[in-house]
C-alpha cells in the first residue's frame, strides 16, 4: 500500500523523514515553502509530483531537498508548471547523495509552459553527489506551446482557445494520471477547475 501525502496551497516549510521502507507519494499543488525529504532507510521508493498554475500576480517559491542518507533507495521528483500574466515561479531543487548512500537512484524533472513575457520563471535544479555508485539525473525545460501541435488542433476545427486549453490539460494530466489512483474525485475536480480557470 502506498502512503500518500497531498499538500495543497500550503505556505509553511515541511520536513519529511522516511524511516520505514515502502512506497511513498507526495503531491504538491500550488504550495510554496521549503520541503525536505530525508531518506533515512533502505528500499524506499519516493515519488514527488507537483502541479503549479500561476495567474495574475501569483508568486510561487519552492525549494525541495531530496537527501539520500541510506543506500538502495529511489526518489523521483516531477514538477510541472504553467504560468501566465505576471506570475512568478522560482524552483530550487536539490538532490544530495550522502557519502555512504550507494546504489541510490534519484531523478528530478521540471517542465514549464510560459504564456506571457511578463512572467519570471527561475529554475535551479542542483545535484550534490558525494559517492560513486549512483545514478542521478535532472532535466529542465521551459517553453511555449509546440506550434505544430497548435496548428494541428486548429486544422481539426478546434479554435485557438479550445486548442490551448486542451494542450494545457494534456500537459498537466501527465502528472494527474500518475496520482489519480490516490486522490479523491474532489481533488481531481479541483485541478480541473484550475485548468479551466487558467486560460480565461
Amino acid at each position: 500500500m502506498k502512503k500518500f501525502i497531498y499538500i495543497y496551497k500550503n505556505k509553511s516549510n515541511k520536513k519529511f523523514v522516511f524511516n520505514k521502507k515502502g512506497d511513498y507519494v507526495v503531491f504538491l499543488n500550488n504550495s510554496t515553502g521549503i520541503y525536505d525529504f530525508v531518506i533515512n532507510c533502505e528500499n524506499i521508493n519516493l515519488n514527488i509530483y507537483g502541479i503549479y498554475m500561476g495567474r495574475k500576480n501569483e508568486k510561487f517559491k519552492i525549494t525541495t531537498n531530496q537527501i539520500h542518507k541510506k543506500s538502495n533507495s529511489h526518489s523521483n521528483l516531477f514538477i510541472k508548471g504553467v504560468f501566465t500574466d505576471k506570475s512568478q515561479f522560482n524552483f530550487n531543487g536539490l538532490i544530495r547523495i550522502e557519502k555512504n548512500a550507494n546504489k541510490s537512484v534519484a531523478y528530478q524533472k521540471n517542465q514549464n509552459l510560459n504564456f506571457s513575457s511578463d512572467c519570471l520563471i527561475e529554475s535551479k535544479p542542483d545535484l550534490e553527489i558525494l559517492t560513486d555508485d549512483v545514478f542521478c539525473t535532472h532535466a529542465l525545460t521551459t517553453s511555449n506551446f509546440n506550434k505544430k501541435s497548435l496548428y494541428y488542433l486548429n486544422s481539426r476545427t478546434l479554435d485557438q482557445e479550445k486548442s490551448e486549453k486542451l494542450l494545457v490539460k494534456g500537459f498537466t494530466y501527465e502528472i494527474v494520471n500518475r496520482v489519480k489512483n490516490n486522490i479523491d474525485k474532489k481533488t481531481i475536480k479541483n485541478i480541473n477547475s484550475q485548468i479551466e480557470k487558467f486560460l480565461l
Partner: protein
Amino acid sequence: MKNTSYKFPKGINENIVKKISHIKNEPLWMTSFRLKAYKIFKNKKNPKWGPDLSHINFNNICYYLKSTESIYNSWEKLPKKIKETYKKLKIPEAEKNFLGGVNAQYESEAVYERVNKDLQKKGIIFYDIDTALKKYPMLFKKYFATLVQIDDNKYSALNSCVWSGGTFLYVPKNVNVELPLQAYFRINSEKFGQFERTLIIADEGSRVHYIEGCTAPIYSSISLHAAVVEIFALKNSQVKYTTIQNWSNNIYNLVTKRAIAYENGKVEWVDCNIGSRVTMKYPCVVLKGDNSKGQVLSLAYAGSNQHHDAGAKIFHIGKNTKSRVISKSVSKKGGRTSFRGLITIEKGAKDSLSYVSCNALIMDEKSRSDTYPKVVIKEKESTSQHEATVEKLGEKKLFYMTSRGIKKETAESLLVNSFIEPVTREIPIEYSVELYRLVNLEMTGAVG
C-alpha cells in the same frame, strides 16, 4: 618592459601598482585605471559560493615577474613529477625547458616568424597586449575593460590592477584566418603570465580561432593565476577560443572570460581543464545581436585534492539567438568537479533557444560531483532545455572489455576517453592526441 633591473617585493600596495605601470611605461589613463582597480580589489570580498579561496595569501605573491625570472632556472631543479610527465608525454626538449619556465628557446623561430609576416599582410594585429597598448592606443582604449568591468569580481579587479602579458588580436573586416592562432607565434614576449589579459576583436565578417595553453603541465611557483579574457565578435563574425589548461597542482586558477556576439555573430568557447588545485571559470557569452549564436564546450578532470568549479553563462538578449552548452567532467581519487551554469533569456529575446547538457563521471567513492545550474526565463516565445546526469563507469562495458582480454586500466581509460570525446573532437588534432595521452596517463600512470 624589457628592464630587468627591478626586483619586485612580495605583496601588493599602491606603490607596487604604480611601479608596474611605470616599468611598462604606460599612459596616464592606464595608471589611474590600475589604481582604481586596486581600490576595488581591496574592498571586494571573495564570493560566498564555490570553492574555498581563503587560503590564498595575497601578501605572499609577487605581482610582477618576467617569465625568464622563474625560480627554477635549470631543468634539474624542476619538481620530479613534472619532469616525469614531460617524459611520458614525449615533449621535445626545447619545449620542455620553455614549459617548465626554465627558458624560452625555440629552434623553430624562423617558422613562427614567417607565420607572423603572413598575418601582417592580411592586416591582422597580433601582439602581446603591452605592445598593442603602445602601438594602437585608440583601438585598445575603445574595447579594453568594457566587457569585463573592473568591479565584476575580486579577481577581475586584481587582474585589472596588476595585469601583464597576454594577447591582443584584431582581425579586420572580412578576413578569414585559416590557421588557428596561438600565443607561441609571438616571439620574444611573455607567453604565460600569472595575470594575463587577452583582448580579441573580430571585425565584421571575419573569422578566427585562437588557442591558449597546452596539455603539458605548466609549473609556476606563484600559486595564483587570475586572467581576464574579453572577446568582441562584431556583425557576421565568428570567434572560437580554445583553452587547454594543465597548471601544476598548487595553483588557484581563477579566470574571468566573457564574449559578446553582435548580429549574426558566433562565439565558441572550448575549455579543457586538467590541472590546478582550484579552478573557477565560467566562460560567458552575451548574445546581444539578433541571430547570434554561442557555444560553450567544457571538460574538467579532477584528481586528488583538486576542485574544478567550471561552467558557462549565456545571456540571450537579441531575437532568434541560440546557445548550446556541453559539459563533461570526470572526478577521481577524491577530486571534486562542479558545474555552475546560468542561462538567462531576457524579455524580447523571441524565438531563442538554449540547450544545456552536463554529464559527470565519478570514478571512486572518495570523489564528488555537483551540478548547480540556474535558468531564468523572461520571454514566452523561447525554449530552454537543461539536462544533467551523474554516474559511474558502466560495469557491463568494463566487464565486456575485460572478458575480451583488455586490461582493466586500459578499458577504463578507453571508456573515459570516449566519454569526453564530444569535447575533444572540437579541438585541433595534435591537441586531442596529447589530451588522449594525458588522460591515459592520469588513468593508468603510463602512456601507450
